[in-house]
């Protein structure tokens, strides 16, 4: 079930009330059952994969911990990595692999044909695979003791607020909270409520209303002039942000209702003055995952400049590939890798932009970063490389074939409100920011958000964009 659905709005209060009514020692069972139900709402068959992944990681981590010899530990780590990444590969990357393989074979004149697997990508597979991998890797590196309780471990893998689209939590952060007996707290309820309505607002009012306009310009870019295309690209920047930020915010709010604090996944990323800063503010749980499990093991920044640049490039390219099995994601990731390297070389070595204090230089940096990110989204949003190139071609050609592109003034009003709120929220989380405001302002904001959600949400079917990853 999705967060912006009636079943979820019924499911969540039932879970919260039942959670507090139960004795603490039984709560994990209820949360686990609720999480499985939440996941099976899409397709009951998906649960088999998640159960398999849970068991493999649970028993591998025990085997890793049990064996003293590094060789034996490695054996079980590899078993775990191959199983987890193998499942991910089959479901997510097999198509891209066969396409590339057959393309290369064709170049060499070999008629190679691989079987076509018509598999449906299970929702959130990349998220829970990375979450469980982080746990097993931590056990291997000795940073983490293996969990003895299969139930709690299963709950760590499937905890419903963050199961299908993150934040990608770490075991040592989430599980202790799941084990702690929480009691109903007004502060948690009010903050959870604030986060949920804010998340629903940005998903349903901003992202869902911008989506049809974005779809229109991406479906026929050659029909619009450069100005309209640029506006459409800007809309996509806000659509994807509102979509993913909205989801994460509802996840945070839902978890908070039962006393669990999930990590922040977004911190006003479009106010970043550099690509580096952008990735510290955008999809933070994934960035930190790649930092801890790819970048640092590769040597991080304690290496030669050329090796560091290669490390950065590898991390960003892999991060692109994590998003989807398509060349477009690979290019999207590579662009950020490249920009990161260039930025460090120019910006930091020559001190072109100060990224610390607000001023003209920072504003200039914010604008440049936004433009780069917006142009990079073209690869992210396009279904193929040729579609992405068509968009660039159309941007250059500046032709007008279709009727003028006129967004609804009400949507522009809500988008404007969202941008203002986002600026006000710089380095703040909505619930905490809100709690410091006077009563009248708080309730005015609630009323506006509720009115937006109930009367102005998008009506077309727009699943959360990150569900496909």
């Amino acid at each position, binding site marked *: 079930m999705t967060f912006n*659905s009636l079943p979820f709005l019924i499911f969540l209060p039932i879970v919260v009330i039942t959670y507090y009514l139960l004795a603490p020692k039984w709560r994990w069972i209820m949360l686990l059952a609720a999480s499985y139900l939440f996941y099976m709402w899409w397709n009951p068959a998906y649960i088999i994969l998640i159960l398999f992944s849970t068991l493999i990681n649970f028993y591998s981590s025990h085997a890793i911990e049990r064996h003293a010899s590094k060789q034996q530990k490695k054996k079980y780590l590899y078993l775990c990595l191959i199983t987890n990444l193998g499942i991910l590969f089959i479901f997510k990357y097999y198509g891209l692999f066969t396409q590339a393989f057959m393309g290369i074979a064709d170049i060499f004149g070999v008629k190679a044909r691989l079987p076509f697997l018509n598999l449906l990508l299970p929702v959130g597979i990349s998220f829970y695979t990375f979450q469980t991998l982080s746990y097993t890797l931590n056990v291997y590196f000795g940073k983490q003791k293996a969990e003895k309780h299969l139930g709690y471990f299963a709950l760590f893998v499937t905890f419903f607020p963050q199961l299908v689209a993150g934040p990608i939590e770490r075991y040592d952060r989430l599980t202790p909270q799941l084990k702690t007996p929480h009691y109903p707290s007004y502060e948690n309820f009010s903050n959870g409520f604030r986060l949920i309505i804010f998340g629903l607002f940005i998903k349903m009012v901003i992202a869902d209303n911008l989506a049809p306009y974005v779809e229109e310009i991406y479906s026929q870019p050659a029909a619009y002039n450069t100005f309209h295309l640029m506006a459409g690209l800007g809309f996509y920047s806000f659509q994807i942000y509102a979509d993913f930020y909205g989801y994460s915010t509802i996840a945070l709010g839902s978890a908070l209702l039962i006393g669990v604090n999930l990590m922040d996944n977004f911190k006003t990323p479009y106010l970043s003055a550099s690509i580096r800063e952008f990735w510290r503010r955008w999809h933070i749980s994934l960035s930190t995952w790649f930092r801890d499990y790819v970048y640092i093991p590769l040597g991080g920044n304690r290496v030669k400049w050329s090796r560091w640049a290669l490390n950065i490039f590898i991390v960003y390219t892999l991060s692109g590939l994590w998003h989807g099995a398509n060349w477009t994601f690979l290019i999207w990731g590579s662009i950020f890798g490249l920009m990161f390297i260039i930025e460090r070389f120019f910006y930091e070595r020559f001190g072109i932009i100060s990224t610390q204090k607000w001023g003209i230089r920072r504003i200039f940096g914010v604008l440049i970063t936004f433009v780069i990110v917006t142009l990079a989204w073209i690869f992210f949003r396009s279904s193929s490389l040729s579609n992405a190139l068509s968009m660039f071609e159309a941007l250059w050609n500046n032709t007008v074939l279709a009727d003028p592109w006129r967004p609804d003034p009400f949507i522009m009003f809500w988008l404007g409100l969202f941008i203002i709120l986002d600026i006000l929220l710089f380095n703040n989380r909505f619930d905490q920011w809100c709690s410091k405001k006077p009563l009248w302002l708080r309730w005015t904001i609630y009323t506006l958000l*509720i009115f937006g959600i109930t009367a102005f949400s998008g009506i077309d079917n727009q699943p959360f964009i990150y569900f496909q990853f």
Partner: protein
Amino acid sequence: MKPLAAKILPRLFILAIIAFLLNWIYTVEFYPRDLKKIDLLDSLQKVIPQSDVIYFGESSNFSFIYEDYDQRRISDFITDYFPGLQMGTVNKGALHAGIYLRLLQQIPPEAPVKTIIITMNLRSFSADWIYSKLENVLQRDMVLISDGPPLWNRFRLGLKAYDNKTSMQRSLQVKHALKTQALPVDPPCNFPNAAAWIETIKKSPTYPLIEDSVAKALAVSFVINYGFQIDTMDNPRIHDFDDIVKYAHQRGWQVILNILPENTQLSSALLGPCLKKLMMSNAELLTKRYESQGAIVVNNLELVDSSHFSDKKWPTEHYDEYGRKMVARQIALSMKNLYPNYFSDVFMKSNFTCDYETPSPFFLTLRKDSTCSRSGKFAERLDTNNAFGARFVRHYYEVKTLNPQKITASGWFTGNYQPKDVKLIISIEDDKKQSKLWTASVSKDMENGKWASLQVSATIPENFGPNDVIKVYFWYTGKNSVWIDDVNITLQTENLNTESDTISSLIEN
């Protein structure tokens, strides 16, 4: 717990008050605007205040083929039979009885509506349509007019809280129904259900009976769409139609149910008699059921030959001009007794006028222009962009009952022209597009700027047959604009003029 409840409950109360106020603001300010965005509701709202009769249909009403001379809808053709009667149309692809019922409930008591014509598509009783993925959009459109506070309904729209399923879920529902809905086993029709029938088609080298690259897929489509026996207890469409008829009676409306023609010829050619038998028994069941409930049921199931269906690769109810006109005629005839004072049989009509003021449905591609006119406010401008003017087209099937011997056409024109450039033409065209022409042209110089008329008569050939067409039109080959007005065409049943076909031109002020 108590202090917590003391904090939460007052806030919930305030939230309820806010919700109440927001609902009021939404209902007054934004709800009408949202209703207008839904084309189906918008078109219903537009036709309600001015319609004595409303036609509810799906794509069968408005689908046409490019070659049709007259590309109007079935409902427009019905209107031709009742000049003066106000008729409105509400149509959208994939509509069905469940949606028609919801739309009917929107008609206010003060509306002038007396009769409703409801399309009864046999295919809409099939699982394939009941669980169609197009249902999501239709159900979405209906949310705003559901019971309950408007703001709640609008919120449901945002949450997609209606019958909103994925394509895969819909497809599973269809598969399940094909397997579980029993068919009557009556040799040689020995298929226990549609799924078994489809399996036989897929496996058999000699079935379907036609050898064609698309025959297998087409045969499977036919079974999916018509391979069912209507279950009067469980089929949701039956309940919808029951409710429609009941509701119409409560409102004092006459109900005409239009069972659409299906391509029974093609189904027999592909699958033998079994499927056609099922289709006929379903149509008979519907006819009996709803006639007994007081509705007028027009069973057109076998009305249209296979050649008049526009889609050849899958079964639909999309007809060419002939098919649409035939359906319209059957409905019009069934309405004759309801509106005897308005009824005028189009197939017996002998005089046709186009004055560019009143509606002239028998003249096609008509373009009004108010620059000048002979009578009223409008005429039609002919120039290099519009060389032919409004066309009068009459097919053999439309005149065979009248059996005319002769046709006479006249019309007025004015402008700055060369005599040879203005012609009034009668053309009789056969199915090979071979034409016989009778032309009236200006034979001598006339004073430009004055209205003048042309008249032409033609004897209809004895071999005028099923695929032939009569056309009448002005043809202008000059560069300056001319205007035509008051075109009149008469079909004479007896050849009163003993002289040969006449061609004349008159000059008048």
